[in-house]
Each structure stands twice: as C-alpha cells, then as structure tokens.
C-alpha cells in the first residue's frame, strides 16, 4: 500500500509523542545529569565527568565487576530461555486441537500465566519449590534429589529458568498458533497431493509462515528476559550469594538500596544503550523481512490474484504491509 505524504499527520501523532516524551525523555535527562556527578547525600552533588562510565566498563573495580558479571549472567539466562521457549512454543502451537470447545479451553489456560502479576508468579514458584511446603521441592527431595533453591546455585538457576519457561512459553505458543491459523487450507491440500511428508510440510509451509511472528516472539522474549526483575527477585532475592543477580536487580540494589545515584545512572545509560542497539537490529531485520516477503510475493505470478480479472483477492494471500 503506498501511503500519501501528509505532514499534518503529526497532529494525530502529537498526543502519543507528548505522553511518551513526558515519561521517557524527562526522566532520561535526569539520569544523564546524575551519571556525571557524585553525591554524598544531602542533595550535594560533585562533578565526576565520565568517571562512572570508566569504572563501569573496567572489571577490576567493584562497580565494573558487578555490572559485567550480572550482564554475563543475564545474557546466559536470556539465551537459555530462548533456546527452550521457542522450540517448545512451536511444538505446543502445533499440538493445539483443531476445533471444538477444547480450542477455547486450551487458549484460556495457555494465556493464564501471562495475566498473573509478576511478583505473584514469583510467589507461586517460591512456594511450589520449597522443600517443606511446596509440591515440587517435596517430591524432588522425596525421590532422593537434594533440591534446595535457597542454598544451592544450580537449583536456584534451574528454578528461575523453569519459572520463566512456565511463565512465558505460552506467549511464543500463542504467537505461533496465530501464524499457523493464517495458513490457508489450500496449502495443505497442495502438499498432500504432492505427497509431502509431515516434516516437509513443517519446513516448507509452516515455518516460513511463522517467520514473522517468531521474530516478534524472539524480540519480546529477549527484551523481557533481559530486563527481568520481579520474578527472580521474589524467588531467590538474587541469591544464593549473587548467583541469580541480573542487571535490573543489580541496578535497583545500587539505585534504591545504596542510593548511589551517579553509579546507578551510569549503569542505566549503558543498560539502555545495549537494549536500544538490540532493538534496532531486530527492528531492521523485521522491516526487511516484511519488504522481502512483499517483493517475493509480487514476483510469484501464481499468487497474484489481482491479475486474473474479476477474482477478488484472497486476504490471506495478499502480501502484508511491513512494520513501518
């Protein structure tokens, strides 16, 4: 769809711009201001230049060591949950019932964990995993596995990862399901006539059709796991020791715990910058994927229903507009 150039559209966008600028730009300016200063309390500030940033990126200092360690943990965590949630989400989406009341029931149950406040998610798993009163902890210990997420690093990690899989796999599954539902039945019939195997159907039809939603899923999951705070904080409090302290937990500890405004602000800026870069990469890939698909679809005459006069274009086969 070719859009018309119209600068008056800014009037329509202005409210959004104002609301978001009020909550994004103003506070960010405060952060930039703090990041260059040091304070000893009493609202007295001293100019510190780029001192905090130097310290932040130098692993030999206390601040730098803590930041880089939590960053490493966070990246590892994000990669692990993506590696579990994306394949599992696809499998669950493929396992959805085809019709009847079970579809609605499955959808509602799948969406349920997404609507639970994050600290309650933490509370659920905190209780569920406790060896004394939680089913999971009790059963594991009863069958001879020494499981205790409060004192053992690995157990704490496993608990946090399983919790995230429990919490967010549904999102991936629902996205993939939406992608699958948009595939017209004709594609499957064609595959059947060609005698395609199930795997071939998955690889040649289903996966390409899920491409776009999978990108959204990976983007959302990566970002949300990269800024995860509440759930691990409630379950492990960042412990045992510092073993499950992710970047956000470290940041809140420095900002609201120690009230080290300068350090916290510098950390915030670097943290935000990383997110911005990753976000930009995904956005570019997503926009390009949209354009490529459009070009591809236009070059395939078989899909060009408009060419045959009098035939109304089938909506599902029409190339969709890119993100922007």
């Amino acid at each position, binding site marked *: 769809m070719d859009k018309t150039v119209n600068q008056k559209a800014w009037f329509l966008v202005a409210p959004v711009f104002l609301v978001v600028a009020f909550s994004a730009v103003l506070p960010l300016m405060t952060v930039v201001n703090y990041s260059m200063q040091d304070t000893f309390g009493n609202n007295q500030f001293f100019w510190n230049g780029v001192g905090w940033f130097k310290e932040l990126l130098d692993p030999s200092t206390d601040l730098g060591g803590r930041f880089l360690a939590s960053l490493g943990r966070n990246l590892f965590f994000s990669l692990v949950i993506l590696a579990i949630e994306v394949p599992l989400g696809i499998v669950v989406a493929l396992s959805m019932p085809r019709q009847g009341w079970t579809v609605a029931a499955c959808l509602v149950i799948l969406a349920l964990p997404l609507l639970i406040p994050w600290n309650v998610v933490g509370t659920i798993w905190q209780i569920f995993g406790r060896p004394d009163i939680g089913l999971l902890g009790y059963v594991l210990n009863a069958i001879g596995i020494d499981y205790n997420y409060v004192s053992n690093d690995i157990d704490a990690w496993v608990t946090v990862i399983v919790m995230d899989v429990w919490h967010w796999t549904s*999102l991936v599954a629902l996205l993939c399901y939406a992608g699958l539902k948009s595939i017209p039945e004709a594609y499957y019939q064609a595959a059947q006539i060609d005698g395609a195997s199930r795997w071939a159907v998955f690889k040649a039809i289903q996966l390409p059709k899920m491409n776009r939603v999978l990108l959204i899923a990976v983007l959302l999951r990566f970002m949300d796991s990269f800024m995860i705070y509440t759930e691990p904080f409630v379950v492990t409090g960042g412990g045992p020791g510092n073993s499950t302290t992710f970047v956000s937990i470290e940041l809140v500890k420095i900002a609201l715990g120690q009230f080290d405004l300068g350090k916290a602000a510098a950390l915030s800026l670097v943290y935000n910058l990383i997110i911005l870069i990753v976000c930009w990469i995904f956005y570019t890939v997503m926009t390009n994927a949209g354009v490529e698909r459009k070009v591809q679809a236009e070059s395939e005459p078989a899909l060009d229903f408009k060419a045959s006069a009098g035939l109304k274009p089938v909506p599902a086969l029409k190339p969709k507009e890119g993100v922007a």
Partner: protein
Amino acid sequence: MHSIPGRRVIMALFLIFLLLPIYWLVNMSFKTNAEIVSTMTLWPHTPTLQHYKRIFTDESWYSGYINSLEYVVLNTIISISVALPAAYAFSRYRFLGDKHLFFWLLSNRMAPAAVYALPFFNLYSAIGLFDTPWAVALAHCIFNVPLAVWILEGFVSGVPREIDETAFLDGYSFPRFFIKILVPLIASGIGVAAFFCFMFSWVELLLARTLTSVQTKPIAAIMTRTVSAAGMDWGLLAAAGVLTIIPGALVIWFVRNYIASGFALGRV
C-alpha cells in the same frame, strides 16, 4: 493437517505443567496455616475460608485491589485514546520522521523499568502526583502506549483505504469519520489492545511500588510487605495471590476468541 503426532499427549502434559503450580497455590489458600506447615496434603483436609475472609474484611488488604484496578483502568483509557489517532496516522500517511518516531516508540516498550524507577520517583514527586493512581497510570504509559500504537496500526492497516475515501466523499468530517466509521470497524482491535494494556499494567510491580507509598499501594506490594512483617502467613499469601489471578482470568475469558490474533499484534 497442521498438527503433529502425539499432540494430545503433548498438550495435556503442557497444560498440567501450567496448572500444577497454580493448583498448589489455590490448594494452600484453603488450608489452615497449621496444616500447611505440619503435613504434606494434596488437597485441604480441613478446608477453611479464613484467609479470604480476612482479606475481604480488612481494609488495608482489599483497598489494594481497588488501587490496582484504579490505575490499570486509567492507564488503559489513556493509552488507547492517545494511541488510536497515532495508529491511524502511521498506517495511512508518510510524514517527516515517521520511521524514526515509530522506532523510538518501540524502543520505549523495551526500556527496562528498573532504569526509570528512580527518575520517575523524582519526577512525580516534583509535580505532586506521587502516591496517586495518576502517577502509576502515566508511568505505565511508557510501555503501554507504544504497544497500543503497534497493535492498532496493524488493525487499521487491515481496513481498506477505499472506506476512508468513500466516507470523505460522503461529506464526513475527519473526527466524525473516525468515531462513526473507523472505530466500529476496528472494535475487535481496540479490544485486543485494551486487553494488552490491562495485562501489562496489571502485572507490572516495580514502578507501581516505587511510585506509591501509603494511599494507593497496589495489592502486589501489600502482599510482599505484610508477609515479611507477619513472619510468613503462607495461607494469607496464597489467598491474596489467588485473588490477583482472578481479574486476569476474567479478562481472558472475554477476549478468548481474539487472543490468538491479538498476540500476533494484528499482523500475521
């Protein structure tokens, strides 16, 4: 055809995995504290409603739910009403800096709440909104408005352009066209967007907790505070947790037919 072998088993196992921890919470909320601590029981042997009774009769508890719902509803209304015109603009027009603006909005959806906790505290204290539902509602706009724009843009793009043109030819003014024609056409999209705003505002705690102190504490914050002070009242904690799940479950039930397309943000 779009299914795989053993799908019923996989689905059943996954649903059990999802429901088991929730069942355990519900189970605990009906037990007495003595039963929770002393024995391992798969269902409450001496079922009790004492925890729920306490929450519904103690104002410091139930006011938490009202506070939470208040800012969630405010936020949903603000987000949808500012996002609607913007979504239309992004979908129909090209204008100076549109792509950059869209990316900037999207990047705000991804900004970590932890970064904003402290500056928001300063900002809202300075303008006198601290400890009001408005503070939380406005703060949550930072991730809900971009999301609403993103979802609604997908739905507006699904409305054929010819409809706009016909309406304008028929002499509709822009606001009248917008309210009388466009909004009813994308009603399901608005429902989906509202659902997402509700959801993300309801589940967020860090900002909500930072921006409130006494008057408008959200239920999630009241839960953590009371528990640490009272020396682990497990039954009460579980009952409060169960009650926070209910609004979400109700909302899902209403939008169940749109969930799938909604999660794809209107653009599959």
